[in-house]
């Protein structure tokens, strides 16, 4: 009954989405206020019904309704309640339902916080988002219905992949989708601007906070995914350049370029074509990502589905949405007149440089991700493009971007002189270079990439300080600085922290792979690890060999770690549950490998010391906070408040 209700709710949502898309778009074209005003209620109605569908699916999981195919394939009666709930989005169908709910959520948010926007703009934005909703709802209902029944029902489910049974699963997908899907708002604003032919600074001002918030969520989602993989997968890595990871990283790069480009369009009316194109690109990359991980076109450890039939549907959808938007772009391109002029080292010039570098990096990631497919499609064999390629290519490309991050915020708009900038920054430059050269010597040896990484993070850190100093010197006080400024500084600082963390951990991490008998010890990075054997441990839906490893330093016992080797009851799948212990900013990481003898007294154990790895996550959090802060700047909130009394006046009149 409940699954059928959910199915029905999806159909109603589709009907509402069609209403939300068709009528307002026609209305905006014709200037018909009645048709345009359908947008808001239709959008909000669609949200209500997608949520109902979601609740129905979640309910089916929570009560172990194995007559629903999705529940039978992804859940298990012994699965803890929390994971039964997260299993709602743990499959291809379920995650698409989450997509649709989150898209409806963003649409509703736009419908609520858009009182100050002209009616035709709102109608177009909501209409375009409605078109996207239609695509996904049709896809869901025709090829990926989460409410399909499985009769006769099996006795029990096939269990959720053990790797997903971690609380990273609870927040990583929703946050990621909030970002990924949130770029649809920027996309819709761009399309609305293209349709109306009004591509002025106002459009950039309106879409900027939405874009920044989506970007912040995406940053959070990617960071969480990386952190989760680090803790869950047991080999100590935190980024593998897997196609699915790249599928989320590419929209992030485009989104970063977009929020910077929007700044120029908002402030100076320049870069209109760039900004529009970036807005289209960011969301297109989100859609591309959806295609890549569900079509089976690339081999990924994270693929949701490898179904060419579904892939064909998504591809057709991509052609419609992205192709359509690019046709619109080409058509309106002549109308996008440029703004004012600017000189070589003006902020516009530097931001343009930033855009260029970020897009080159984006191109590199896209090239590497798609190259195996390109070669195969041309019949020229099969090759793999993995981390060695991406690391070799991406890191050098980031160099100019990181450098620009330092000078960009300090450059003046329109005109800036190089000698002036050099004199302001000469100390920062000198200290950065010195740090880069000297710091590695105090650590574990001179490594060229470490030099580069330290120099860059110190550079960004110092230029952030210079930014504060200059503003304060000019009469501002910390409390009067805008949130926009604070947000920017915080986000850039977060980048510096992240880069520093990556530099240290990538260059100075150590690991040992040892065979340990009970009582054996091994030494790593000044710590001594003593193996005390394993005990049998029974979890809610697994059996585990629970190891005990004592960590001591200078003979003093510090902590006891409990890495586990689990076998899950339903699937028989083994899983390594590493034990990770943060020590200030470092991590001590212990994972059990395989038992090396019959009685499981001797084990292969892997111990890692990951110095400063937590700076990676801390830096990401700073970026997220910076993003949210910048989006909540007064000038966006005042616009909303000011519109309210005028709207009231209009109603009263």
């Amino acid at each position, binding site marked *: 009954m409940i699954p059928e209700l959910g199915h029905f709710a999806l159909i109603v949502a589709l009907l509402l989405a069609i209403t939300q898309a068709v009528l307002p778009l026609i209305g905006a074209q014709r200037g018909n206020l009645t048709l345009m005003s359908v947008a808001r209620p239709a959008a909000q109605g669609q949200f209500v019904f997608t949520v109902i569908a979601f609740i129905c699916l979640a309910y089916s999981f929570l009560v172990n309704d194995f007559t629903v195919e999705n529940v039978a394939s992804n859940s298990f009666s012994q699965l803890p309640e929390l994971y039964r709930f997260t299993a709602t989005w743990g499959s291809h169908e379920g995650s698409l339902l989450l997509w649709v709910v989150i898209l409806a959520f963003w649409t509703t948010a736009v419908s609520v916080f858009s009182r100050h926007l002209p009616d035709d703009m709102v109608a177009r934005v909501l209409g375009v988002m409605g078109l996207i909703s239609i695509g996904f709802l049709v896809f869901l209902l025709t090829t990926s219905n989460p409410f399909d029944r499985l009769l006769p029902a099996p006795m029990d489910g096939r269990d959720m992949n053990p790797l997903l049974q971690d609380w990273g699963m609870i927040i990583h997908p929703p946050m990621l989708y909030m970002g990924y899907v949130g770029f649809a708002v920027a996309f819709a604003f761009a399309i609305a601007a293209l349709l109306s032919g009004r591509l002025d600074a106002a459009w950039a001002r309106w879409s900027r906070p939405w874009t920044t918030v989506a970007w912040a969520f995406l940053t959070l989602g990617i960071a969480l995914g990386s952190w989760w993989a680090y803790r869950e997968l047991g080999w100590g890595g935190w980024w593998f350049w897997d196609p699915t990871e790249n599928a989320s990283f590419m929209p992030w790069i485009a989104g970063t370029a977009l929020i910077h480009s929007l700044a120029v369009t908002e402030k100076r009316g320049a870069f209109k074509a760039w900004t529009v194109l970036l807005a289209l690109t960011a969301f297109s990359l989100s859609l591309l990502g959806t295609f890549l991980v569900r079509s089976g076109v690339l081999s990924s450890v994270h693929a949701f589905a490898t179904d060419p039939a579904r892939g064909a549907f998504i591809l057709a959808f991509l052609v419609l949405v992205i192709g359509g938007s690019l046709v619109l772009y080409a058509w309106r391109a002549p109308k996008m007149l440029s703004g004012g002029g600017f000189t070589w080292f003006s902020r516009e010039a530097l931001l343009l440089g930033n855009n260029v570098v970020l897009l*080159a990096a984006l191109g590199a990631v896209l090239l590497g991700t798609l190259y195996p497919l390109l070669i195969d499609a041309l019949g020229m064999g099969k090759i*793999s493009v993995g981390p060695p390629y991406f690391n070799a290519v991406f890191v050098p490309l980031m160099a*100019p971007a990181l450098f620009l991050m330092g000078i960009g915020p300090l450059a003046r708009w329109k005109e800036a002189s190089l000698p002036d900038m050099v004199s302001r920054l000469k100390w920062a430059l000198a200290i950065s270079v010195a740090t880069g050269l000297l710091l590695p010597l105090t650590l574990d040896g001179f490594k060229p990439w470490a030099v580069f990484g330290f120099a860059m993070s110190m550079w960004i850190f110092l230029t952030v300080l210079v930014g504060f100093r200059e503003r304060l010197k000019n009469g501002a006080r910390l409390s009067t600085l805008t949130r926009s400024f604070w947000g920017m500084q915080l986000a850039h600082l977060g980048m510096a922290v992240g880069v520093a963390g990556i530099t240290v951990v990538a260059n100075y991490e150590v690991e040992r792979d040892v065979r340990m008998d009970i009582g054996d010890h091994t*030494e790593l990075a000044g710590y001594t690890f003593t193996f005390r054997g394993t005990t049998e441990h029974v979890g809610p839906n697994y059996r585990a060999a629970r190891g005990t490893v004592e960590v001591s330093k200078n003979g003093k016992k510090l902590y006891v770690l409990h890495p586990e080797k689990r076998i899950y009851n339903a699937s028989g799948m083994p899983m390594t549950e590493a034990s990770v212990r943060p020590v200030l900013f470092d991590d001590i990481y212990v994972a059990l490998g395989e038992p090396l003898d019959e009685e499981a007294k001797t084990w292969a154990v892997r111990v890692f010391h990951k110095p400063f790895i937590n700076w990676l996550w801390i830096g990401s959090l700073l970026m997220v906070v910076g993003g949210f802060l910048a989006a909540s700047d007064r000038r966006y909130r005042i616009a909303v408040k000011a519109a309210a009394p005028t709207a009231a006046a209009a109603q009263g009149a």
Partner: protein
Amino acid sequence: MSRKPWMPVSWLFSLALVLAPAVWAGEAESIGADPVIEQRMIKLSEELRCLVCQNESLAGSHAELAEDLREEIRVQMKAGKNDKEVIDYLTTRYGDFVLYRPPFKPLTLLLWFGPALFLLLGAGIWYFTLKKRRNLIETPVDEKKLAAAAQLLEDNK
């Protein structure tokens, strides 16, 4: 074999190890008998694909074939083969697909040079856009038009 630890306490340990064998007996052995070979093997297998997994490196995979291949790499290295020879050994049997670092050959020229090309292209766009924009700033004001504008303002007072 771990590298030098952070703090200079390693000498204390070595001292203790020498002076108190009774207390410190039971030092765990490396999985591979030879720690130097082990490090080499791990570094190399991080750049190789596990052929039975969806997308994992040979170093990180727990699959049986992966363990066999890691052992085979150890054997090869002990026999004195250098990294290139081990890679050749594997690509002869499994093709280029097993390499996560795409080999540098005509097929992959676009791949390896692509990023630099993108950057160059971008730099070109940056340069030409800036030249255009600079000209916008440097357009001199037409004195006649300025005078006419001033006159209009006077007339409308």
